[in-house]
């Protein structure tokens, strides 16, 4: 990487999507200026400028150019810093499969997960079931492999592992026991944290994430 490369990450400490990018950058050994956004109260001028349409993090700013959306950022990182630690596999079919499941996590799993801690009543009950179904499908995709990427930690592992930091929140508010229903997923998550510094170095405390979700629920008027 050239000496004058400027990499800034607009982020929020508890965001799974921000975590994806942090892990990707760490895998590639890229130094960056890490900036926390105050999403609940006061988004920065830079964020509003760099992502005017969605006003969301993560945003990667590389030499002044913004790249938005975690999956898009991961692919950008992989294509730009292509000399080490490939995130996506080289085989076209394996790539397609990884992209399919990453999309499933971003769309289906995250949507169901949000409802698990944000809703009540019938909607909540439905979301609990949906969320567990999503996790079971992902466990099926993992199978007996050490990582979703096979022998090596890759794009799909990066896309999913951040959600593990939210499991305590999902379990508490969803009244779920994920380890009981999806033991292979829990084993995989622990394996990622034990074997990958890129994960363990950036991983937030589950209890801190849980406290954040408690705060969020109060703000949304779900809990008093």
């Amino acid at each position: 990487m050239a000496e004058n490369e400027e990499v800034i990450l607009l982020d929020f400490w508890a965001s799974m999507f921000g975590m994806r990018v942090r892990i990707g950058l760490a895998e590639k050994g890229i130094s960056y200026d890490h900036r926390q956004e105050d999403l609940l109260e006061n988004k920065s001028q830079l964020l509003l400028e760099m992502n005017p349409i969605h006003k969301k993090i993560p945003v990667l700013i590389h030499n002044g150019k913004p790249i938005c959306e975690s999956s898009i950022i991961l692919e950008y990182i992989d294509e730009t810093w292509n000399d080490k630690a490939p995130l996506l596999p080289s085989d076209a079919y394996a790539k397609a499969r990884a992209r399919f499941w990453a999309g499933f996590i971003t769309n289906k799993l995250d949507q169901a997960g949000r409802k698990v801690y944000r809703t009540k009543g019938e909607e909540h009950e439905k979301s609990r079931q949906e969320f567990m179904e999503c996790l079971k499908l992902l466990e099926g995709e993992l199978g007996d492999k050490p990582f979703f990427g096979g022998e090596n930690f890759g794009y799909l592992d990066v896309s999913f592992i951040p959600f593990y930091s939210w499991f305590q929140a999902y379990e508490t508010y969803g009244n779920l026991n994920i380890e009981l229903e999806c033991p292979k997923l829990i084993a995989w998550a622990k394996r990622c944290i034990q074997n990958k510094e890129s994960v363990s170095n950036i991983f937030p405390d589950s209890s801190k994430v849980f406290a954040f979700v408690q705060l969020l629920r109060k703000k949304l008027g779900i809990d008093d």
Partner: protein
Amino acid sequence: MTKSDGFKLLGTAASPFVNRVQFVLNLKSIEYEYIVENLACKSELLLTSNPVYQKVPVLIHANKPPIPESLVIIEYLDEMYPDVHPILPSNPLDRAENRFWASYIDNKFFPLFEELRKTPDKEEKEAIKKQIIEGSQLLEEAFVKVSKGKDYFGGDDAGYLDVVLGCFLAWVKFVEKRNEFNIIDEVRTPKLKKWVNRIWSHEAFKDVFPGSETLMNLFMMLQTHKPPRKI
């Protein structure tokens, strides 16, 4: 140049997501067997090929497991045949920009059309129409930026965003007529208006677009199976 590499595409005529894949197969001159699905009565093949979503399109290539999701399929085809009419640009920043707009189109813009259909309240409908128009303004700006002054999003010829947005043009026409408003017009979105005409007459696109009867059939099916909300 044609290839017979054993491609099968599961689809329905009225699905813009299926049409998208067909555009790419045409642009790359890839031969394929088209298997028509009846979405009201899904085949065993569809249910086993896409158990997660049970939706079309699904691409089956030779003896590999099936690939669902139109954008995933398009990138797969681009990687399998990188030298024949590349769909995505090669520069990582341009690729990210293209993918960003695809995500906007699929997750923010097109869902408004279904919202419009399902909303019974007149005032709410007007609000959604306004959002659609704002979306088209953003897409006009995107066209200016991505095309870099050329005729297509992809430059001199059709590329990624031409297929990703182009596939909705038949539905755009249908919704404009039904709801009596212009989504793409000469005054607000002049560049897109010219682009629309190019896409309608483009070799790889023109025979794929469904006719108004096909669209009406799908529309009626949606009205029955996923009716508008009650007021």
